[in-house]
């Protein structure tokens, strides 16, 4: 399921997991269920740990599959399920026969990529009518969400619901999650979830990830474990100019040289740091625990690896050679939507979330018929197959404030039960496309978003909870097919690091240890700091607690065993 994902920063792709899921949920349950004994997961979170294991089983909701429409492409290698058929509006099913909302008011703070619409727009109204809850959105810029989150959670008055992506869970945020948000267990654990059939169809490994501090606190967005960041390129210009898609780091560099012509206002790419990490096989940076891996009996963190330095050095060369669009030097804070400049051909390649493959296509379809955005396969840096690392099976969570009354919690669950409706239902169409006739029109089984749809039906409701990872674009079936196939090809190269599938809270004395590495990466690739500065930072990191953290992770793994085989 693809919300019309909006523009993100040019320099740092939002590591927003593609909202998708796995239909092979049964397999996922077996595989994703860690056989862990709860390990020191104290409620305050200061001790850290992981809350998984036998006691966790009791907390997890029952799984009841729904089979509304059989997907055209089944999930494989951690991909989403794909739908490429025409949309039959008359055949849409109803998955929420009775309004579950009790008419209460719920405020939700959520990251938002793009320009938020007015609060009284037709999409929000229609959704609220369908749910029976008056949702009030507090949309915040997704690129700088981490900068708002800490302050909001530190105040005594937090919104009823706060959506927090995994990559924003730095610093003391995990402790805030445990301290400030409600235990949803009484409403969802075991058979209690049957009241919310769409939530019951969310795969168990996604719920497993929603356990924070020994309680079920999050409403998850299931995601494919295949990396979500795709090197996207202008296929139309590539074809016209005869550019070949590169298959190694050197080829990529040579291609950039060929493309760049600053005089004509054309550069090869934006910041390709994330692609470099993938190509060089660097452990995932989207979440701290994923960055740890057991290699020959020793715990290794991503920043300690040779691959990490090599990837940074390669990216630095791209910048130094002048192949990167100058806007990408600006960084996050002053970032603007790269979409228009990409459409204007000012640069031809950028790394972003897979959802932009479709959303940029839809955006440009009417005014720019030649425009074709496509995803290139991630190349191994040496020309061989890349080594990719799995992302978590759920990366974004909605949390309910501890102060919320039972009726507010029930209303929130009513919201989630609608937004988690699977493809092929009326609720899915409303959540993802808006109101027929207002936000989209259907011609020959192809829904096309109107301007109003493009402006209003972005982010918001899709951020609360979503169905099993789904890619369905009846408007551009070839894109949906290519997206799922890309995931399946990349999935074949994807390995799982030691803490895949677990929700881990680091002890609070280590939480600020890795704060500045992302900043340092950006400084290095832009030539403001040297690789040796990174080596120095890594050795400081080790002595300031990194080595102790290594022991802590080792112990965690020894006591619990890996979640994924």
């Amino acid at each position, binding site marked *: 399921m693809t919300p019309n994902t909006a523009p993100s920063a040019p*320099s740092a792709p939002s590591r927003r997991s593609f909202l998708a899921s796995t239909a092979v949920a049964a397999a996922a349950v077996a595989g994703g269920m860690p056989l862990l004994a709860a390990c020191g997961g104290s409620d*305050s979170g*200061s001790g850290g740990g992981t809350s998984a294991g036998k006691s966790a089983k009791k907390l997890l909701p029952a799984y009841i599959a729904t089979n509304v429409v059989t997907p055209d492409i089944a999930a494989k290698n951690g991909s989403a399920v794909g739908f490429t058929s025409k949309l039959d509006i008359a055949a849409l099913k109803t998955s929420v026969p009775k309004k579950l909302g009790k008419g209460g008011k719920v405020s939700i703070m959520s990251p938002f990529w793009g320009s938020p619409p007015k609060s009284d727009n037709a999409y929000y109204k229609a959704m609220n009518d369908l749910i029976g809850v008056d949702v009030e959105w507090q949309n915040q810029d997704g690129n700088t969400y*981490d*900068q708002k989150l*800490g*302050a909001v*959670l*530190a*105040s*005594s008055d937090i919104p009823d619901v706060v959506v927090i992506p995994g990559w924003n869970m*730095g*610093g*003391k*945020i995990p*402790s*805030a999650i445990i*301290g*400030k948000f409600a235990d949803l267990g009484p409403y969802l654990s075991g058979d209690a979830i049957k009241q919310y059939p769409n939530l019951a169809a969310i795969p168990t490994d996604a719920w497993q990830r929603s356990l924070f501090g020994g309680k079920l606190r999050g409403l998850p967005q299931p995601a494919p474990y295949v990396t979500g960041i795709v090197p996207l390129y202008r296929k139309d210009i590539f074809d016209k100019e005869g550019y070949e898609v590169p298959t190694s780091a050197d080829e990529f560099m040579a291609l950039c040289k060929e493309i760049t012509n*600053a*005089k004509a*206002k054309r*550069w090869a790419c934006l910041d390709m740091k994330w692609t470099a990490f993938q190509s060089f096989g660097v452990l995932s940076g989207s979440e701290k625990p994923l960055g740890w891996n057991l290699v020959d009996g020793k715990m290794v963190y991503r920043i300690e690896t040779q691959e990490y330095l090599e990837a940074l050095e390669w990216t630095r060369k791209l910048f130094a050679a002048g192949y990167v*669009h*100058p*806007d990408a*030097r*600006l*960084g*996050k*804070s*002053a970032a*603007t939507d790269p979409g228009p400049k990409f459409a204007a051909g*000012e640069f031809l390649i950028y790394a972003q979330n897979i959802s932009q493959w479709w959303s940029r296509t839809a955006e440009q379809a009417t005014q720019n018929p030649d425009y074709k955005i496509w995803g290139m396969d991630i190349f191994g840096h040496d020309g061989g197959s890349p080594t990719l690392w799995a992302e978590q099976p759920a990366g974004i969570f909605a949390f309910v404030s*501890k*102060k919320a009354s039972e009726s507010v919690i029930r209303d929130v669950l009513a919201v989630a039960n609608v937004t988690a409706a699977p493809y092929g239902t009326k609720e899915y169409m409303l959540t993802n496309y808006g109101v027929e006739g207002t936000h989209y029109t259907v011609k020959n089984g192809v829904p096309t978003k109107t301007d109003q749809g493009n402006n209003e039906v972005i982010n918001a409701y899709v951020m609360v909870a979503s169905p099993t990872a789904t890619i369905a674009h009846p408007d551009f079936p070839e894109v949906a097919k290519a997206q799922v196939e890309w995931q399946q090809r990349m999935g074949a190269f994807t390995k799982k690091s030691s803490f895949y599938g677990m929700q881990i809270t680091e002890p*609070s004395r280590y*939480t*600020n240890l890795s*704060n*500045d590495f992302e*900043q340092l990466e*950006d*400084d290095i690739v*832009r030539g*403001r*700091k040297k690789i040796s500065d990174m080596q120095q930072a890594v050795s400081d990191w080790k002595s300031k607690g990194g080595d102790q953290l290594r022991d802590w992770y080792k112990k965690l793994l020894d006591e619990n065993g890996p979640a994924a085989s």
Partner: protein
Amino acid sequence: MSHSTVPRSGTEADTTEKTPVASGGATGSREKRPSGKVSLRLRFRRDRVLLLMTLPAVLLVLLFNYVPILGNIVAFQDYDPYISDNGIVSMLHSPWVGIENFQRVFEDSAFWDAVQNTLVLFFLQLVLYFPIPIGLALLINSVVRPRVRALSQAILYLPHFFSWVLVIAVFQQLFGGAGILSQLLRQHGYDGLDIMTDPDTFKFLITAQSVWKDAGWGIIVFLAALSSVSPDLYEAAAMDGAGRWRRMWHITLPALRPVIALLLVLRVGDALTVGFEQILLQRDAVGPGAAEVLDTFVWWNGVRNQDFGYAAAAGLIKGVVSLGLVLAANKVAHLMGEQGVYKK
């Protein structure tokens, strides 16, 4: 701050009302005043109306400037605001760590980078920015036709009302790596210039942005001071054969001297505050090595990394140093025979 509780001296601090020759007389007037011998109670009775009038302002200052100072105790804690729903309760339950945060701050090279950047920016702005509004005020003051004068004032004031986001976007369009200037250069066979992301010239860029945005607004106080100069002085000087430059040197500039001294003292007190939003927005463009100043350092560590105790320690250090600076600058002003922000 303190002058609001002493209403009598308030009028004297209002230097804009003074005539140019009166600047030296202020220190002498205190002894002549009978109030020095009147008891505190009598003075309260006598000034009660004035005191009542200042009360709302004092309450606001207390509530928003003094009460929050108590929060500085988190600088001595490993503060975790998330352990309870109330900040004060969290403070009571957070573990005490003594001066550990301060030790960490002093050992942190990023902190010293921020101190250095802050000071360099302060001096740059003092030299390059501070004189500009004075010059502009003199220029505007010499414009005789009221319509031209009003129009040029309006144009100069306008950028002050733009937000920093807008100002930076405009600068980016003009001077960015893909901006108008760079493309023009490239089309004529030169290399493009990326002024916006060059760490070496970043401090000049910041200063230039401040000048463009706020120098016009800064002339207001100088214009007010100039308008209080009696035209008789100019006429008399002209009769005695003083030319333009002599009149400016002997009449206009002395008239501005108390205002300049006051603003300078205030500026020095604010030395460690060199523009928060403006720098935060451009921090990523040049990296923290060149752009981090004390305010963004505090913000980054406190709000972004939630290392609140640490950030509070850095903020407290900044506050103490600023207080010292303002006292020192005031002392210098007194030595120069000016009034400064408060009287001795």
